[in-house]
């Protein structure tokens, strides 16, 4: 197990290298002049015709492909991802600023994914072919078919526009002042909800929570729907297994058969999928955060991708690849922890 983990971790730099190379290749399709546009948002800048060339030199935009890549790699080693023209700050700083917000969102989204997805999946499997099962299943498929950007805007419309419950952003203006000015509010974890509790500010905690609900639902509903399906079929599959028959032959109560004998086995494949979904949600934040103006990585990623801010895209992708690899590793390890067949290998 340990050597497996080490092996995977050794693979990490390779994957990161590959990711950066891939993105660099993509950007090399553009001419220096086109890449320059990232740094120019106003034609006034071109007042002096030479400034274009000077800017190109300044940002190393006309370096030949391998040299540019190596130049960039070197700075990466120093955690210097360059300048983000969309965030108007160094890429690394931009990442650090936005990452906790996204992580907080994803963290809370895990709760409904696990609870609703798995719980309803089991219920659906147990009531196989009942009306309840059909309703859950059809709802899941419909949910799955709803594009996030439509769904998110609808949530925003109904729950904020009409009911006023789920405001966009991460904090209300008053809470922002309370959290970020004066220095009384200590940032322990950079998760606002946790910090609020640690600082004993229930009002801020609540404010953060109501801002999170809409994005959480939007971000995770597809995962619920999908996980529900997976859980259901895995559960159905497990319930047909020989050892379930053995358990019944022993006289084990049906409830125990389902929740003790079947569920644990059924959840083994689900864990992998759930893990992938949770990691995948990091990618799904793009639209959710855009719709809810939630100040995280996704919002920024969307902007930087559209505006070809390649420093940011590379930074984002490297971070994401890192999380992907480590996340997958965690998923695999937890998979092994659940399944004794793998654990005791």
């Amino acid at each position, binding site marked *: 197990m340990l050597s497996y983990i080490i092996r995977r971790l050794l693979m990490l730099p390779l994957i990161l290298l590959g990711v950066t190379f891939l993105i660099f290749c993509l950007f090399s399709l553009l001419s220096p002049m086109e890449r320059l546009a990232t740094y120019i948002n106003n034609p006034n800048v071109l007042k002096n015709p030479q400034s274009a060339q000077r800017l190109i030199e300044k940002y190393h935009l006309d370096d030949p492909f391998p040299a540019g890549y190596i130049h960039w790699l070197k700075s990466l080693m120093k955690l210097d991802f360059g300048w983000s023209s969309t965030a108007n700050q160094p890429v690394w700083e931009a990442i650090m600023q936005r990452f906790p917000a996204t992580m907080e969102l994803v963290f809370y989204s895990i709760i409904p994914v696990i609870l609703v997805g798995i719980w309803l999946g089991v219920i659906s499997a147990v009531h196989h072919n009942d009306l309840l099962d059909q309703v859950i299943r059809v709802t899941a498929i*419909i949910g799955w078919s709803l594009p996030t950007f*439509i769904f998110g805007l609808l949530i925003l419309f109904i729950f904020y526009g009409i009911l006023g419950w789920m405001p966009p952003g991460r904090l209300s203006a008053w809470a922002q002042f309370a959290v970020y000015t004066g220095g009384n509010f200590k940032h322990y974890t950079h998760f606002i909800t946790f910090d609020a509790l640690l600082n004993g500010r229930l009002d801020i905690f609540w404010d953060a929570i109501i801002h999170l609900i809409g994005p959480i639902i939007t971000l995770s509903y597809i995962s619920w729907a999908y996980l529900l399906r997976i859980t259901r079929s895995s559960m159905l599959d497990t319930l047909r297994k020989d050892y379930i028959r053995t358990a019944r032959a022993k006289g084990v109560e049906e409830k125990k058969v389902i929740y003790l004998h079947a569920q644990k086995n059924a959840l083994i494949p689900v864990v992998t999928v759930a893990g992938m979904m949770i990691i995948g949600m990091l990618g799904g934040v793009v639209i959710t955060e855009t719709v809810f103006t939630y100040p995280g990585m996704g919002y920024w990623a969307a902007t930087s991708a559209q505006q070809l801010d390649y420093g940011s895209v590379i930074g984002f992708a490297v971070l*994401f690849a890192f999380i992907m690899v480590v996340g997958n590793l965690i998923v695999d390890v937890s998979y092994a922890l659940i399944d004794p067949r793998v654990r005791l290998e």
Partner: protein
Amino acid sequence: MNRIIKKLLSNTTSLIGLLLLLFFVVIAIFAPYIAPPLFDDPYQIVRMTWDIEPRPPGFPMADEMRVVFESLGKQVDRDKALFGTAQGGYDIFYGLIWGTRTAFRVGIITVVFSMLIGVISGSIAAYFGGWIDELLMRITDIFLSIPFLVAAMVLTTILGRGLDKVMVALIAFGWMGYARVIRGSILSTKQEIYIMAARALGVKDFRIILLHLLPNTIFPVLVQASMNIGSMVVTAAALSFLGVGAPLGYADWGQMVSFARNWIIGSPGNAGKYWYAVFFPGIFIVLFVLSWNLVGDTLRDILDPRLRGEL
């Protein structure tokens, strides 16, 4: 095959899916009759007015536009926007009808090509194993490490706007799932004895892959592909929504939704003022995706019980 069709027809949900699909196919085929084009390029959405603000269903074609079309020698048969106009005076009805063709094109082309790439790389990796497998799978990992939407967005922006560019981007970053699925199922099918039997007969590697492995492993991929047709259309729409999809004015559902983006909520007290702007394109997309999902979902159940629980 007959068994599959019979089962698809006997299942209520898949029947609904198939009917919906049929509905869209009919629309796509008869688009020139349902919504006769007024521009030379039929995919250019007919403009009913120069107004930016959406206009409600039944809005008649503005005089200045009628003059334009008539002086271009076109016969204006339909002079009312059946579903209203989108931002910019585009006829929603026209955009949706011709957008159906676009949806099929985007969905099917992207899925077919990404499936091809995925199947080829996945089967080579699985069959030959060793370092080839390792290399191909690491490449897959690398492609998977960038969130699909972000990657597609970057590539589309680099290549420039246009549906073909969108498709290239979707294909370039959409093949990895197939590669993984086919690899997994070939790895298990490889253990089957008929593969050993074929090798015992002296069958060459590529013939084994083509004739023995693929026919037996392709179904899970096909199921996945059928469900992905819908999600590819949604992703293309999401790209349009984020402003990097089809060129402005091109008949594409995603664009119709993105037209509605700023008009989802009407004025206070009349929240549903522009309901038609998002409702019609939204319902088209949802139903289209739903139809593929329903069919794919049933197909999955029918074709391969082993697939349960797998991605």
